[in-house]
């Protein structure tokens, strides 16, 4: 089997990283949309360990985990590089991508799935993490410098998902006054030619994430009730 295939869902922010990278490199590929409640035998065969999207399949060989996929794309198609050449700069880029997933995403998600006092408390680490990103943007248009790079793609979900989550919980997380550079970057990234045509439909996203929040809160309440009644 020759060519490039990308297994994804319509909404996965992680899959978008691969979409953007392939577009930046001008690589033709076939998209296979998965229904995660009914995973295809192909997906299970290509990602038996996690059974998740995205999975990139190149000439029949699968690569899983979105940041690993980004590095694979960058190493296979060397034009329009995503990572810098200098080893220390590369290490720094990898650091910020990891920080985005390990800390920024998890802390913002925490704010999103909580309410009341718990949500207030969850805001503290979320804002601290965003402040680190704000500092990192000093003197730069994108995290990659003048052009979009590895870290921009890794953090790119902020450019779309933040406003959706903010609308659902009625809370401003990335305040334009507190985070002027980050807000500007989110706008510049979201509007960039390669990026802006690939965002999933906003109304569908709102419905999906509202349902996810409701379900998570209900499950947490049920678990708490079960714990106290033991």
């Amino acid at each position: 089997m020759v060519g490039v295939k990308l297994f994804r869902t319509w909404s996965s922010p992680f899959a978008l990283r691969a979409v953007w990278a392939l577009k930046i490199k001008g690589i033709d590929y076939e998209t296979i949309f998965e229904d995660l409640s009914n995973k295809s035998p192909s997906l299970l065969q290509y990602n038996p360990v996690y059974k998740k999207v995205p999975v990139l399949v190149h000439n029949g060989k699968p690569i899983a985990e979105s940041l690993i996929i980004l590095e694979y794309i960058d190493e296979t198609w060397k034009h329009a590089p995503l990572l810098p050449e200098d080893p220390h700069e590369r290490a720094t880029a990898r650091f910020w991508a990891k920080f985005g997933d390990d800390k920024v995403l998890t802390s913002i998600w925490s704010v999103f799935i909580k309410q009341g006092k718990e949500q207030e408390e969850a805001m503290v680490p979320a804002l601290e993490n965003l402040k680190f990103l704000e500092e990192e943007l000093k003197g730069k248009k994108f995290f990659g410098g003048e052009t979009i790079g590895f870290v921009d793609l890794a953090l790119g979900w902020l450019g779309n998902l933040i406003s959706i989550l903010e609308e659902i919980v009625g809370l401003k997380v990335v305040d334009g006054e507190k985070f002027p550079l980050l807000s500007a970057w989110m706008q510049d990234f979201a509007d960039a030619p390669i990026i802006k045509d690939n965002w999933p439909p906003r109304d569908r996203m709102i419905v999906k994430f509202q349902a996810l929040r409701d379900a998570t809160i209900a499950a947490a309440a049920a678990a708490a009730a079960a714990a106290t009644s033991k």
Partner: protein
Amino acid sequence: MADEIILLDFWPSMFGMKVRIALAEKGLKYEYRDEDLFNKGPLLLEMNPIHKKIPVLIHNGKPICESQIIVQYIDEVWKDKSPLLPSDPYHRAQARFWADYIDKKLHLLGQRLWRTKGEEQEANKEYIECLKLLEGELGDKPYFGGENFGFVDVNLMPYFSWLYVFEIAANFSIEAECPKLITWAKRCMEKESVSTSLPDRQKLYDFFLQLKKWHGIE
């Protein structure tokens, strides 16, 4: 100009061990500094202000944080000796995948083995399942890297240093379940870069008993 390399570390740390092994594989001279994690020094706080964690590699004054990122950095800078990652992009992706799996799964499961009361049986079972998956990936190769010791080998060996502790603490043995991994670990320990980078088992076990006390676990 000679390279100045400092490693901020904590001797029982699995993450620190990875970096020590990588530095030894490349035959690099460096200054090792053991950090007091209850009383973190100013250099650590300056070099890793975001996480304030070890290991941190400081190369000619510039810090690199996060063990996997450090190992890749070492491999890229000193690329002419003992390459850890393969040269082919697909195999590199596979190596990164398994190293990431080890960090994501083994680390968490290892903690569950001794921290959660009442879930020991299940924790043991899951841990062994993970190791079996890794054993499947090793197959009949001498190393995860193939003929040569590589990136995944560097990432997994430190867990084997702690496995001795887990086996005693959680009362299970992987010898019967994962014989190939045991053979692999013994082969790795024959390498000087590995044996000189990992702590003495007994010392580690004594540290573990102290750790349990700190966590209030009998």
